[in-house]
Each structure stands twice: as structure tokens, then as C-alpha cells.
């Protein structure tokens, strides 16, 4: 009973908040409603009993991604309304609607059958995080470690692209000699 009420409440609120995100002309409103929508999505995970994923949703989307967006937003004037240039709003509406419809159909199709079985079923009386941890550190240890390498690559890439002498070219400049030659020829 309570779960049903909570589900419909969360659904209505999430859809409403994301509508504000899309429709609002003010960046600040859009960002805030996006963050609130993300928080409410984690509510669905908690209803389904996936508390680990719910917490991950909160940390990753609300904590990390929204913080990144807010930092990016600080470079702009957030109080001003955005002037949108939709030359052909009918076409945008049609294409957006069609792709949304296709996505909903794709994801709804497998629900029709119940042949999906959990590969790593939950153990009774054991917390969600323990079960996830066991799968993550046995079966998925290699992808987990490769993800660490990926983060290392991203960190190195960020540091050298932003920090180390990228504002000056270390490529040997032969054009200076060439220009002298050309001027000599002209004389």
C-alpha cells in the first residue's frame, strides 16, 4: 500500500521536475529541478529494495555530476533567461517524441516475458552492499581494475592538457629560418 503511494508520488514528482528542467528558460531553475529529480529517482531504487544503487545514484548524480554542472555554471550569468533558437519546433517535437517512443518500446518489450533470471540472486538476510561487493570483487574484479586504469588515464590526460606547457608550442620552429631565407631571396 505505502509502496504504491510512494511510487506514484515519486513518479509524478520526477516527471514534473524533469519537465521543468526541459521547459524552463532559466539555467538555475533547470539545474535545481534536475538535481531534485535525481534525488527522487533514487527513491525508486529504495522502494525496489536496491539500497546500494539508491545510494550510488545519490552520490554519483547528485553529488558528483550536479556539482560539476554547478561549477560549469559559475562561468555564465545564471540569472539571465536563455533565448532559445528553435526555428522548427514542430520538427523538434516530432523527432524528440519519436525517439522517446522508440526508447520506451525497446525497454518495455522485455517486460512482457518473465524469462529474465538473476545471474547472481540476492541472499536472504544479507545486505545489498555485501552482495554487490562479493560480485564486484570476484567476477567483476578485472573490469573494476581496468576502470581504475581508465581513471588514471583520465587524470594524466587532464593534468597534461590543462597544466604542462600546453600554452606554448614545443614544436621546433623552422619558419623563422625560412622567413629569413625568403627575405634574402627578395633582396
Amino acid at each position, binding site marked *: 500500500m505505502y509502496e504504491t503511494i510512494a511510487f506514484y508520488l515519486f513518479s509524478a514528482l520526477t516527471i514534473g521536475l524533469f519537465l521543468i528542467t526541459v521547459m524552463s528558460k532559466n539555467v538555475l531553475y533547470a539545474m535545481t529541478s534536475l538535481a531534485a529529480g535525481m534525488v527522487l529517482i533514487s527513491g525508486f531504487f529504495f522502494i525496489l529494495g536496491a539500497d546500494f544503487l539508491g545510494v550510488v545514484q545519490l552520490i554519483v548524480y547528485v553529488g558528483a555530476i550536479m556539482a560539476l554542472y554547478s561549477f560549469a555554471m559559475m562561468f555564465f550569468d545564471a540569472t539571465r533567461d536563455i533565448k532559445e533558437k528553435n526555428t522548427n519546433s514542430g520538427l523538434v517535437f516530432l523527432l524528440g517524441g519519436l525517439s522517446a517512443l*522508440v*526508447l520506451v*518500446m*525497446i*525497454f518495455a*518489450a*522485455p517486460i*512482457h*516475458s518473465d*524469462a*529474465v*533470471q*538473476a*545471474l547472481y540472486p540476492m*541472499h536472504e*538476510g*544479507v545486505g545489498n552492499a*555485501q*552482495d554487490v561487493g*562479493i560480485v564486484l570483487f*570476484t*567476477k*567483476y*574484479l*578485472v*573490469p573494476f581494475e*581496468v*576502470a581504475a*586504469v*581508465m581513471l*588514471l*588515464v*583520465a587524470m*594524466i*590526460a587532464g593534468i*597534461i*592538457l590543462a597544466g*604542462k606547457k*600546453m600554452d606554448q*608550442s*614545443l*614544436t*621546433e*620552429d*623552422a*619558419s623563422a629560418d*625560412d622567413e629569413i631565407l625568403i627575405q634574402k631571396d627578395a633582396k
Partner: protein
Amino acid sequence: MLQPINVSLESLNLITLAPMLVAIAGGLIILVLDLINSKLHKTLYVMLTLLILFIDFGAVLGLNVNERGFFDVMLIDGVSIISQLMIIVASMLFIPLSLTSKRFHEYSYPEFFALFLFMIAGFQFMVTSDNLILIFVGLETASLALYTLIALHNRSNSFEAAVKYFTMGALSAGFYAMGSAVIYGLTGSIELYKVAAVLSLRMDEASIMIAIFGASVLLLTAFAFKLSLFPFHTWAPDVYEGASAPLAGYMSVVPKVAAFVVSIRIFGMYIDLGIEWVRIIILVLAVGTMTLANIMALVQEDVKRMLAYSSISHAGFIMAALALDTTEGTTAIFLYYALFMFTNLGAFAMLWISRHKVRRFSDRYDNPYEKFAGLINIMPMGAVIMALFMLSLAGVPPFSVFWGKIYVMQAAVNSGYVWLAIVMGLNSAIAAYYYLKLIVFMFLKEPVKSVDTVYYNLSKPLMAVIGLATVATIGAIFYIQPLISYIYYMISASGY
């Protein structure tokens, strides 16, 4: 409470991880060396990278075919061994190209070589798994490193190229993740052999086709971006133009080999399940790619952009072989890339030796055709070698790419696609025009008098790499038969 888990070390089969660990450890060694002494010359890093690649090569050769390791996440089959060997050989050809006689921005960073090794490890993870998560993580590791390698060239158009490639890559990563999610929702597994088992049981269900359609279209879009297939090819010429010439040549081979391996695993599975329209979509993409890229290549004014479109068209050729899904077709994919690798890297290396900091011949392009006018008078040997590469790319016998083309066509005819072989033949004829255009410029035109062409980048290591590529291009007739039988043996051993 949960039971403690006992895993025996033998069951992990850790040797399957050895090649990637060599590359990753090599990258870390380079980073640490730079921390200890930041004044080391780039020659040391080049040689160290080469050494690590040699060890990596040996580690791959030491693997047994058809083994799984680490809870079945790692999969060593013939396809993965061949593709790893090709990736490493192409990298060994690429790295010495940094030993130019002039200094370039990217090679003054030791991180360039570390990122390069991490990228190779990423590609190796990508090809040695049929677990969609590991494929994704490997692909992203490699791609992130590659974007940075492009941007390190440090010109405005290489930043443009890196950002374009990054945006397109992020989009395709999104498509890939969505496609994998649909597959998971459909079958409850992300390991392709289990997915195939579940799907084959559920093929007669009514609503399943639309979900399979969704999954395969999303995944096909993701890989069409990575393989630069029409209509997702638009990024490729700009990115190739902005990247340094050797990196552009490298990008037209190695990331595509890795993406083709994953495509073989995923779409080969769909075609094996009897889903015929996947084959039709791939054939339409392939024919569109080879034809339209050829027509676009005809009107290019820049040799590098022409080579970019030509490599897109070659990717279309190979995609057609993927649609056949026979052992011969899959062999053709690897044979084609093994031969194309040397010729294409050689052609891009020839552009590299004439790289200038400023654009001398045109405001817009680095390598316009005029730059190569009358090359036979300025640099006779270079002109002849470049002409050899062009003839090989055009598919003139007995040079290397001819054998790849003839093998693809043979595979097409043998599986009953005669029209496909005819389309390929016609496309080779169109392609000959733009390759010959460069030869005409080099041999028959007078050099542009007002600016002199200076090939100042030339050095002994570059000459060695170009010489090796030339030998591989001309001597294809001598090694083609053993190469085919080795690849065919490996492919059939892994059941494709």
C-alpha cells in the same frame, strides 16, 4: 550471513591477463622514470616503449587458444590473439615515427608514451573478452588516451580534432551503454555466450524482435561511429586532418581492428541466430560507406583528407566481409587489415616527413596536392615509394592490398553475394582515380616554383619504418599464403 568465498588460484588462469599487465606496467614504469629524472631524452622512452611492446608480443604468442580466465571474464580465442598481434605490430611501426630529426610537441612529454601503452592495454582488454562491461571499460580507456594523444599535437586544429572525436566518442559510448542495457534487460546477462544461449531459446516469442532490433541498432550505431561508417563518418576526415600524420595512420588501423573484433562477436552472434535483417543493415552500411566515401575522396584537395576518405572506404570493404559471417569472411577482415596496415602507415609516414610548422602551400590545408607536384625531381626515391603505396591502396597487383581485396571478393562470391563482389570491383575502379591523381601530380607536374618543398623531418628511423612498410607492400606475394593459412587456422579454431 554469507559464506566466505574460496577461489583457487589455478582456476583464475592468471596468464590470460599477462599481455595487458605488461603494457600497463610499462606505462607506469615510464611515469615513474619521468618522476625520478625529468631530463631524460625521448629516445630512451621510444626504445623502452618498443621493448615493452616486444615483451607484450611474446606474452600474446605464449597464450593458448580457446581459454577462459578470471571467472570467464577473459576470453582468449584465435580472434583475440590475431587482433592483439596486429595491434602490437602496428604500434611497433608507429612508435619509431616519433624519432624525427625535428622536435615535435607531443614527443617532449614522457606521458605521451605512458598514455600510448595504456591505450594498447585498453584495446587488448577490449578484444580479449565477450563480457560487455569489460569491452566497454577497455574501449573507454583506449579512447580517452587516444583523444589526449591527438590533442597533444598542440595546434588549433588538433584541439578541434580531439574535441570532435571526444564528443562523437561520448555519443557512441552512450549508444553502446544503452544497447548493452537492452541486451541485459532481454536476457539477464551481459556475457555474449550466455546471451546467445538465452536468445536462441526465446526466438519464437512475439515481442522479442523489437527488443532485439532496439539492442542491435543501438550497438550498430555505436560501432558505426567507431568504425567511421556512413552516415556516421563525418568526424573522421576532420580528426585525421588535425591529428599528426602517423597518429592518423595509426587511427585508421588499430582502433578499427579492435572495434571490428567486438563487432564480429556481437553481430556475428545475431547473424548466427538467424536474424537476417542484421546482415541486411550491415550490407547497406558497407555498400553506402565504400561508395560515398570514394565519391567524397574524389573531390578532396588535401592528400591527408583524401587518405582519410580512402580509409573510410576500405572500412566499408571490410564491413561487407563482416556481413558474410563465414570463416572465410572473418579471415578476410584480418587479412585485409594486416596488409592495409603496412601500406597505410607507410603512406601517412610519407606525409609525416614533409610536415612543416607553417602551411606553405595553402592557407587551409597542410598537404595539398600541389605540395607533391614534381616530387620525382626533388626526391626521386620518395616519389617512387609514395607511388608504390598509392598503387597498393588502389589494389594493383601484386602489391599487398590487392590480395586483401581479392580475398574479400572471393569470400563474397563463395557465399553467394556476386553483386557485392561487383560493387567492390566498381568501387576499386573509382578509387584508382584519386590515387592515380597523386601519382600524376608527383610524376608529371612541374614543382611549384615559388615555394620549395623541404623534407626536413627525414631521419634514419623514419627511413627504416618506411623501408619496412615498402618491403611488406611489395613482398606480399611471398608471405600471403602462410599468412592466410595462419589466420584461417586461428579463426576456425575459435569457431567463427
